[in-house]
């Protein structure tokens, strides 16, 4: 059995507001294998975003064990994390190509090679021809594609996505799910994807981790054994329904 890329054991996070303590995550325990696309699903306030911040090294856990990287897949926390948020948060004053280049600039990567790579990534996310546009000239879905290209520019081993399609309309979201599946399979990245969409979690995930709120705890962790590439039709199949039902059960909603 191969070594996991991400290894979490009993991870705990507590927020303090004055004297009050609020448990954001308790006992998050799961592994992510290299190249997996793991979906973290749960209601608002279940600590999914907090878990993502812990993986990004932006917050320290209050307990438990977090290990990222393995002998075969070394992990440098400074340059191996790419992030995508619910809002595209592109810089309004930069053209799309220069937006994609931001992480490369921060890391001081060679400019010419980065520009070439940025163009390739824009082609990968379906934005070829938009290099010189400003963000306001693109729709929300296209801006989010640019944000995905930005997350990949420095060739990180781990991409963290925090409800990246949560602000999009349902049809655009479907399309972006297909696109992300393609981008993931072509780039071979390990992706941790936070969502509150049950169908989205099953559709995208090689594995789904279910988190609940109040009390915050990890309710389940299972592999999704559905053929790839997955199509939107698949969502009406019985096997797909089995997985979504399982998530609702784990969330105590079925």
């Amino acid at each position, binding site marked *: 059995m191969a070594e996991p890329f991400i290894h979490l054991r009993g991870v705990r996070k507590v927020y303090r507001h004055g004297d009050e303590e609020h448990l954001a995550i308790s006992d998050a325990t799961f592994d992510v294998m290299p190249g997996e696309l793991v979906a973290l699903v749960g209601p608002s306030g279940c600590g999914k975003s907090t878990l993502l911040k812990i993986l990004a090294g932006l917050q320290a856990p209050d307990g438990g064990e977090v290990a990222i990287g393995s002998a075969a897949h070394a992990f440098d926390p400074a340059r191996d994390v790419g992030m995508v948020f619910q*809002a595209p948060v592109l810089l309004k004053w930069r053209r799309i190509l220069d937006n994609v280049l931001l992480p490369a600039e921060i890391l001081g990567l060679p400019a010419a090679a980065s520009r070439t790579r940025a163009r390739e990534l824009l082609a990968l996310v379906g934005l070829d021809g938009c290099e010189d546009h400003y963000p306001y000239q693109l729709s929300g879905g296209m801006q989010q594609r640019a944000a995905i290209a930005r997350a990949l520019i420095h060739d990180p081993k781990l991409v963290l996505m925090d409800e990246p399609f949560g602000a999009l309309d349902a049809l*655009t979201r479907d399309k972006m799910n297909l696109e992300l599946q393609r981008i993931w399979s072509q780039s071979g990245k390990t992706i941790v994807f936070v969502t509150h969409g049950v169908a989205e979690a099953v559709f995208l995930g090689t594995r789904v981790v279910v988190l609940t709120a109040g009390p915050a705890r990890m309710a389940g962790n299972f592999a999704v054994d559905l053929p790839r590439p997955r199509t939107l039709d698949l969502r009406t199949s019985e096997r797909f329904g089995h997985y979504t039902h399982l998530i609702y059960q784990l969330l105590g909603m079925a």
Partner: protein
Amino acid sequence: MDRRDRRNTGGDRLGLGRYAPGVVAHLALVLVWLLLVKLGHLPRFVLPSPMDTARALGAGNYNWWGNVATTSAEIFGGYFLALVVGVGLALLFSWSKVLASFLMPVLVSLNMVPKVALGPIIIVWFKYGVFPNTLIAFSICVFPILMTTARGLREIEPELLDLVRALRGSRWQLFTKIQLPGALPYIFAGMKVAVVLAVAGAIVGEFLGSDRGLGYLMLQVQVTLDTPAMFMAVVLITLLGVALYGLVMGLERWLIPRDARVG
């Protein structure tokens, strides 16, 4: 593809057509002025016609260009000083929270001081001349620049902060790549407000005590009821303000793409 293209594809590439209504409105204003004089049979010393006003430019010993130069020096000097000090202080505050927490309340109080009331004091300190008037212009227009810049530097999306932090970006990188360009539209919003104030400040200074400048000239010709010259002075003062405003707007358009502008 959900690709959109909003580039201007019409024949009017420079968009000159959109200036036409503004030009027409200005001409109409002059026309109304003219009609008011002609139909109202108003005497010249109450309301001179546009032509009388223009004629003042060629007649008399008004030293127009010398006075324009003096007033411009006060307006532009005070404005530029306010820009440097206002933006500089705001930058300092964004770098040191402690400094900001001490100085900001003081500055808010100082902002409440009517700057015009400081005029006589400034003149006592620095006597007549270009310098005290520049200071009055500065004192009146520095606050909006400081306040909007400070606000712009604070407005940083938390996600972008996370993005830079996750990459272990330096504070300097955060500042140059995100904070400062993000604050530019706010700085320009403050700069536009400040134009009007700088002009007012310089003229007030000249009213209070001066031996040169368009405001000084107005007081001189007022004695002889030379209203056309007073009008001409007002027109020139206004043009100075318009020129400065145009300069600021041009700079804004050059530096900031359309959608990123505020105000």
